[in-house]
């Protein structure tokens, strides 16, 4: 089965995407893989599988690879005489920025290239943590209280310490701080505002139980991963999460009773249905006093959360076999014809 892994992108998580792509090269070796790298200036390169190592990108050597362009249905590689069209579905592993904000989704939809990844609407709701809150609240999924601050606005936070400050539109813990007292607030906000114009402030609950659940829908059936309880100190900082992205070993299932697992799955399905079809996503939840709260939605989780699935290859295969179809509107100029006919022309 053919599959192109699309990675890189203009994103703060560009390098993490490279790590994800190299991890997936191993995990998906049963597929006939093609690697397409999007550099920070939006040029696409066809990377030889033997060159899939971090060094190729950090050294700039990728620029020697053949450049790809897009046309309806596929990628085009120019050759000395003529050109070659590459047609295969795409697995979008561009974390953050381009990959999760709807840019790549729009691009692939426009060119009718089938892909695994969040669609445009799903991207909008999961990329910006503010909109994720709105979505969850509208669907009846609980979220922690929050406050929103803007770069040019007031820096007053009304909730009590400690709390957590996050840029609204960034993953991988970049720019995130736990603020324990008033003296530390200003710096934490300066850190977050370096990455985004708005930040979200949430209470920090010491020792809160966090659970990650991944899943996808194929042929009308929801397929769930195991539930993982991630290890953490205060929270996963960038370095730890970065290491997390290259994970490929399976993890131990969280020790949870059946009722809790059912509740997590129910919340996951509520969020997923009708919005995330075509994507394998990971939702991070808290359980506080027996109640499930959504922390965040990762529409392109690190290394596609392969370590949470017992049979990751089948998961990707099932998804590929049931990707959302492209709605084609047929323009038949009927209206213009009718008017022309009425005018007798």
């Amino acid at each position, binding site marked *: 089965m053919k599959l192109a892994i699309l990675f890189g992108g203009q994103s703060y998580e560009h390098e993490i995407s490279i790590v994800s792509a190299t991890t997936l090269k191993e995990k998906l070796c049963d597929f006939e893989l093609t690697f397409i790298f999007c550099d920070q200036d939006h040029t696409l390169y066809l990377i030889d599988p033997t060159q899939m190592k971090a060094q190729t990108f950090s050294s700039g050597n990728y620029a020697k690879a053949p450049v790809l362009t897009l046309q309806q249905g596929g990628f085009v590689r120019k050759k000395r005489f003529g050109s070659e069209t590459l047609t295969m579905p795409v697995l979008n592993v561009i974390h953050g920025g381009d990959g999760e904000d709807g840019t790549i989704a729009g691009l692939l939809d426009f060119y009718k290239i089938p892909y695994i990844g969040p669609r445009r609407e799903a991207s909008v709701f999961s990329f910006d943590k503010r909109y994720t809150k709105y979505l969850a609240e509208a669907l009846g999924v609980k979220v922690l209280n929050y406050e929103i601050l803007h*770069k040019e606005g007031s820096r007053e936070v009304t909730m009590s310490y400690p709390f957590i400050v996050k840029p609204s539109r960034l993953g991988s813990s970049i720019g995130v701080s736990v603020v324990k007292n008033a*003296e*530390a607030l*200003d*710096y934490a906000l*300066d*850190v977050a*505002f*370096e990455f985004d114009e708005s930040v979200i402030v949430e209470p920090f609950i010491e020792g809160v139980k966090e659970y990650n659940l991944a899943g996808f829908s194929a042929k009308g059936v929801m397929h769930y991963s195991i539930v993982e309880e991630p290890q953490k100190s205060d929270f996963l900082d960038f370095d730890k999460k970065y290491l997390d992205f290259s994970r490929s070993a399976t993890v131990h299932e969280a020790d949870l009773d059946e009722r809790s697992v059912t509740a997590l799955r129910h919340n996951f399905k509520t969020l997923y249905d009708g919005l995330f079809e075509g994507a394998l996503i990971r939702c991070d939840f808290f359980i506080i006093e027996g109640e499930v709260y959504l922390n965040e939605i990762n529409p392109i989780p690190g290394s596609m959360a392969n370590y949470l699935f017992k049979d990751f290859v089948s998961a990707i295969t099932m998804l590929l076999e049931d990707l959302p179809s492209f709605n084609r509107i047929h323009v038949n100029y009927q209206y213009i014809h009718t008017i022309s006919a009425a005018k007798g022309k």
Partner: protein
Amino acid sequence: MAQKRIEYAGNTFDISYTIDNPTAKRDIAILHGWGSNKELMRGAFQKCFATLRHLYIDLPGFGASSNSVVLTTQEYATILKIFLKTVHFSGDVVLGHSFGGKVATLLQPKLLVLVASSGILVPKPLRVRMKIALFKALKPVGAARWRSFFVAEDATTLSPVMYETFKNVVNEDFRESFAAFQGEALLCFAKDDTATPLYTAYEIERLMTKARVVVFEGDHYFFLNENLHVNSEVTRSLQMMES
């Protein structure tokens, strides 16, 4: 990293900075040299100065800090003062490398640490003087076309604004400012430095009232290897000031 937006003379500057050791009561602000950035300085000093809060700052136009206007060294210092006020800088120690040393001097800290600071004019090597003479001679025939051949290495990749700024700050005789400095000064210079040779340290020492020269092994970037030595000398200066 963090970023703070400040206004100076009708212009906006996004100043990128990093704080380490945030709970310490006294501060050290650390300024990089021309063409460098705070990460280089942090790489050297992150594990040093245990009793101080570290403020690593990208000067406007360098690293992740923005700049869209032509600046002078004095303006750099004024912008820094505005910035330092917003982070409640204690005013205790400012360490500056090369060009950053000149800016540091104008900030009037209690302890000034000049690391291979520029400010004393050093005769240009013969090769450079010949290049300048040649450029001037060829100007009537349009030497500007080959400008990139003549421009200093420090200036080849600069934006027009930063190139004009470079012309403002390079070859600047800073003796008056050194003489006006009233606090304690620690002058860290290296034996094999050709950009800011060791003898310039002694000249700065003569100009200042309370200065101490420490000689290091190495070149213009000696502090990258001698970081712990710099640390112990700063500690010593602080102890001397307290006793």
